């Protein structure tokens, strides 16, 4: 009826009704973007041939990280805890990235045994110190990024000898890894060392069992490989694959009404997730596959 258009009450300013709107958010599953790779190198004279093999194969690691779409940084520290440069990342520049010119050559140039031979193989202590120096005000600051994962790679033909520096080097290292996880996204160690328990031999020489290094790698879920392995490139490819970590958590822009959230993966209703409250996020039990499209539809109260 015409008079409806002109009702007096229609010009009033009452409270808006309690309405709800549906919000859709889309995510494409991709690896966590950043990984910082720290090579901890046994620099005793017996490692010279392993250095050559490592330098020849590091391209496989870099190519693997590139193809995974990761923003990666790579640093090298010596296991020698006696010299003045202990814990300092090697080289100029001392952080290699995907964009660093002649990155493989730079890595190879770092791998030189010191002019005064060392017998110090305290890899766990060196890793701890290098990571400490990567925090505020440290000489390695810049290597560790706040939200990046951490992959520590021990390369040695002997076992760790950090016992003079830490009462329990394995526990001390795992404590450091826990700290890194708390401030970053993930952290683990890998070991390219002599076979446990008997060591190994190859044309490059013999290796003692890397018991402590294997222990920290297994404790953190990293890769364990034999330094007597004929093909370092295959080992380093495995390391790059190990550095690809898919997220399980997808943060939402708004606070949903909790019982009105729907999640689909590539168009299929998803299960195996829960809603986190603060900040609001959908958290999967296991990470969705890389490349899938995740659609979250949820209701938001406008009041």
């Amino acid at each position, binding site marked *: 009826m015409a008079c409806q258009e002109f009702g*007096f*009450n229609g010009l009033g300013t009452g*409270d808006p009704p*309690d309405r709800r*709107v549906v919000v*859709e958010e889309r995510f494409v599953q991709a690896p966590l973007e*950043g990984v910082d790779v720290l090579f901890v190198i046994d620099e005793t004279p017996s490692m010279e041939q392993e250095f050559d093999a490592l330098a020849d194969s590091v391209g496989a690691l870099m190519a693997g990280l590139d193809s995974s779409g990761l*923003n990666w940084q790579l640093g090298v520290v010596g296991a020698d805890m006696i010299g003045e440069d202990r814990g300092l990342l090697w080289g100029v520049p001392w952080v290699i990235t995907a*964009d660093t010119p002649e990155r493989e050559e730079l890595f190879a140039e770092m791998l030189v045994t010191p002019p005064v031979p060392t017998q110090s193989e305290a890899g766990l202590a060196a890793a701890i110190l290098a990571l400490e120096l990567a925090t505020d005000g440290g000489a390695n600051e*810049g290597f560790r990024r706040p939200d990046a994962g951490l992959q520590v790679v021990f390369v040695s033909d002997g076992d760790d000898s950090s016992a003079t520096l830490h009462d329990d080097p394995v526990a001390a290292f795992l404590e450091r890894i826990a700290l890194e996880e708390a401030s970053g996204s993930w952290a683990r160690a890998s070991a390219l060392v002599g076979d446990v328990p008997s060591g190994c031999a190859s044309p490059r020489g013999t290796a003692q069992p890397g018991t402590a290094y294997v222990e920290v790698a297994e404790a953190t879920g990293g890769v364990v490989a034999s330094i007597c392995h004929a093909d370092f490139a295959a080992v380093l490819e495995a390391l790059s694959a190990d550095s690809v970590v898919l997220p399980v958590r997808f943060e939402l822009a708004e606070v949903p009404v909790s019982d009105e959230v729907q999640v689909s993966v590539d168009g299929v209703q998803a299960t195996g997730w829960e809603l986190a409250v603060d900040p609001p996020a959908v958290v999967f039990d296991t990470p969705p596959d890389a490349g899938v499209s995740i659609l979250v539809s949820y209701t938001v109260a406008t009041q």
Partner: protein
Amino acid sequence: MIAGLLAAAAAAPLQVWDLTLDDAGLVATGDTLQWAWSDAPAAGPGGASWGTNPDGPYLHDTDDSLVIDLPPLGGATQATLLMEHAYDIAAGDSAQLEIDAGAGWVVVDPIGGYPTAEGFVGDSLGWVDSAFDLSGLGDDLQARLRLVADPSQAAEGWYVRRLELHDADVVAPRITPLVLPSDNQDLVGPYRVQLSMVDTVALVDPTVWWSTGGVPAALPMQDVGNGVYEAEVPGQPPDTVVSWFATVSDTTQEARYPEEGEATFRVYLAAPKGLLADLDGARVATEVDLSWTPPVTPHPVVGYELTEEGGQVIAVDEAATQWPLAPGGSRRFSVRADYGALGQGDASPTVQVSVEVPELDELAPSSVARGERRYVLVQGEGLYLLQGRSTFTLGAGVVVEEADVVDVGTATLRIAVDGGAVAGPRALVIDGPQGVATFEGAFEVLEQGNTPTIVSVAPDAVVQGREVEIVAMASAAFAGPVQVEAGDGLVLTQPAVVSGEEVRFGLAARSDAAPGPRTVVLDDGIRLWGVDITVEAYRAPPQRSCSAAPGVVGAWAWLGLAGALCLRQRGRSWLR
């Protein structure tokens, strides 16, 4: 053959004793008779020869000789005995040639003398030649090689493998250096060469030949007595290498010093010492403190010249300076002293600095117009960027709203250039964990140009508690997928869908959103676009105030009344 002494074969020798073939009839005498001939001695330099105890070190605490019967030399005018021998004799022992011409054994010195007062003592380091002048000794002669060993430790011993007796000048003059010029800072000179030149006959034409690179010039040597000869090379300018050698003749033989090649010395002005590069522990730096010790020199130094290998050169007055490091430089430094009118001195040894220099490879875009908000890529080396620790500034009027550090060398900045920012070039300053890096002129604020903008928005308002689909048109195509920053009180309900210059997205206003104008930000990864939206206050919908129309006349009456009331209401609103 005793090649070292017989420069030219003169007349045939009077006699030759080839001791590599047999013992040649020589006779061992003495306390222990340790001289013996062996075709394969276990000691000494090796090879068939006469030697002292060829089975091992010579015996000590003994006096033994090897006796040689010489032919008559009464008619000889230049009788000379040549000996090819090797010796390794311990200090405290003696090894000498002695002659008995009927009046008992007498020590005979070789031409040029024994190496020590006790004769051939020390180590000859293999076979050597010695010559003895036996002129005027008569016809009934014997010679002997006498080794007198004390009770202390012995050495390898004394071995001889050839003897030749000549009646001719078969020995070249012997030259021994006395005073040789060495490297020096004397620009005036002269530089004295003093040599001992001896022979059994008179010497002729003792000469020093010298050059600084061309044909050697002859410099006759002066006889200053006692077989000593001198010459003086004239003074030379700094950084000059003088090459020289000396010759002398005895008419049949010539001698040369050095025997091969040339001796050299250099005239120079000294280099500063102890060049140090101090970075105070920094691993990244834009300058380095260089210091050094002034040169040790008799000449006044008026300043210094510093050089970076393959790079620039700067002059300084004091023995220290601060060197600005340049990206790509060799970081290898040397310094030389400036001696004023005398010229430049030698360069110091090079010092290498291991340090990184911040370098900006890319700032893209490097110019942004006033009033624009957009992303800028920063990429470089030695920057050591770190999220949360690195700050970026571009001068007054340019706000860096966000900095997203990708890695140590890459960051993306979201900047907003104020409409009143001064146009022109300005510096990018990065303050990070490894220090401050300033890149002068890296960025430029442009006068307002053809900055793309949003040209239409429909609808341009959303009511509290309501949801709308916004369609915005830009003056240029969006660069990629658009992220929408809705802002306070607004909820993005549908992600943006882009088609060329058009973007659509769902937007709702919360019921408690403050009414008024807003700017919704569209982010296409390159640029930030502002979409002006108004949040309107909720107004209750019209309510039915009558249930039936009162007819046409009545309707117009209602219309007039409602219009009047409406105007009144608006008037109140305007007056508030």
